[in-house]
C-alpha cells in the first residue's frame, strides 16, 4: 500500500496526489484567451485533454495540468494579450483524493456546504474547518480537496480522524 494512502473498512480512501501544475488566472474576459476554454459560470469546470480549468469566481480560474504539460500551458498563457494575471501556484497546494461511499459524510465533518448538490465535474472554493480549500467532484463518490500546503497537515489530521470515526460506525 502506498504510504500516503490510508484505507479503512468504512470505504473512504484518502490519497495524497502527486504534484501537478497549477495556475491561478485572473482576467476580465475569458473569450480573450486563445487555446484555453474557460467556463464562465462560477463552479463550472472544463477539461481539454489532461488540462482542466475551474471557474472559481467571475474573473478567476484555477488551471491544472500534468507537470509534463507545464511548458505548453505557460506558453499558452504567455499568448494572452488582454490585461491579466497568471501566477503559478503549483507548489502552494496539496491535493487529496477522497473516495468511497461515505465521502459525503467525511466531507460534512468539516465543510458547511451541501456537497450532495454539487454536480459531478464541477467544483468550488469553500472551507474545511476554517481552512480555505478547493473541492472538485470527480465522480459521485470521489472528490479532490486542494488545500494550501501550510494548512494541509491540519486538514489531513481531521480527515484521518473522521475516517476512523466513520469506520467505527460513529
Amino acid at each position, binding site marked *: 500500500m502506498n504510504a500516503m494512502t490510508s484505507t479503512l473498512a468504512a470505504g473512504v480512501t484518502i490519497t495524497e496526489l502527486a504534484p501537478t501544475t497549477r495556475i491561478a488566472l485572473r482576467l476580465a474576459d475569458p473569450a480573450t484567451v486563445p487555446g484555453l476554454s474557460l467556463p464562465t459560470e*462560477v*463552479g463550472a469546470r472544463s477539461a481539454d485533454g489532461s488540462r482542466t480549468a475551474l471557474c*472559481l*469566481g*467571475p474573473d*478567476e480560474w484555477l488551471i491544472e495540468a500534468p507537470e509534463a504539460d507545464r511548458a505548453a500551458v505557460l506558453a499558452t498563457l504567455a499568448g494572452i494579450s488582454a490585461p491579466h494575471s497568471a501566477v503559478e501556484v503549483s507548489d502552494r497546494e496539496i491535493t487529496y483524493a477522497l473516495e468511497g461511499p461515505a465521502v459525503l459524510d467525511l466531507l460534512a465533518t468539516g465543510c*458547511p*456546504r451541501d456537497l450532495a448538490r454539487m454536480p459531478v465535474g464541477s467544483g*468550488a*472554493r*469553500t*472551507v474545511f474547518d476554517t481552512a*480555505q480549500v478547493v473541492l472538485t467532484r470527480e465522480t459521485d463518490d470521489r472528490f479532490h480537496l486542494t488545500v494550501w500546503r501550510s494548512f494541509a497537515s491540519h486538514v489531513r489530521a481531521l480527515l484521518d480522524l473522521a475516517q476512523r470515526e466513520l469506520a467505527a460506525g460513529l
Partner: protein
Amino acid sequence: MLLIYCPYCEQDLPELEFAYAGEAHIARPADPAALSDEEWRDFLFIRSNPKGVHFERWRHLNGCARFFNAARETVGDKFLATYKAGEPRPDADALLASPTGDAK
C-alpha cells in the same frame, strides 16, 4: 445554519463562507481635502445602525471572493435581498412588503 444567496455564484451558501464588510452605499468623497474634520469623521466612522432594514456589504470570501451588497432585516436577521456590487439600492419598504421577503 444561515444561508446567504451569493449573486455571483447564484446559490444559497453557508454563512461560514462569507465575511461581513460594513455598511453599503457609502461613497468616498471625491475631494477629501475639501472636507471639514467633522465631515471626514462622518465619512470614516459614523454609520446608520438602523433597527430594521440595513444595507450592507458582504464578501464571499471562501467562495468566489466577490464583494456584493445585501439588505438585511436586523431584528430577525433575515436577508431580504442580495445584489451585485454597483447595482442600485433596492427600496426597503418594497422588500419588507414582498410576500416571501426573500427577493433574490
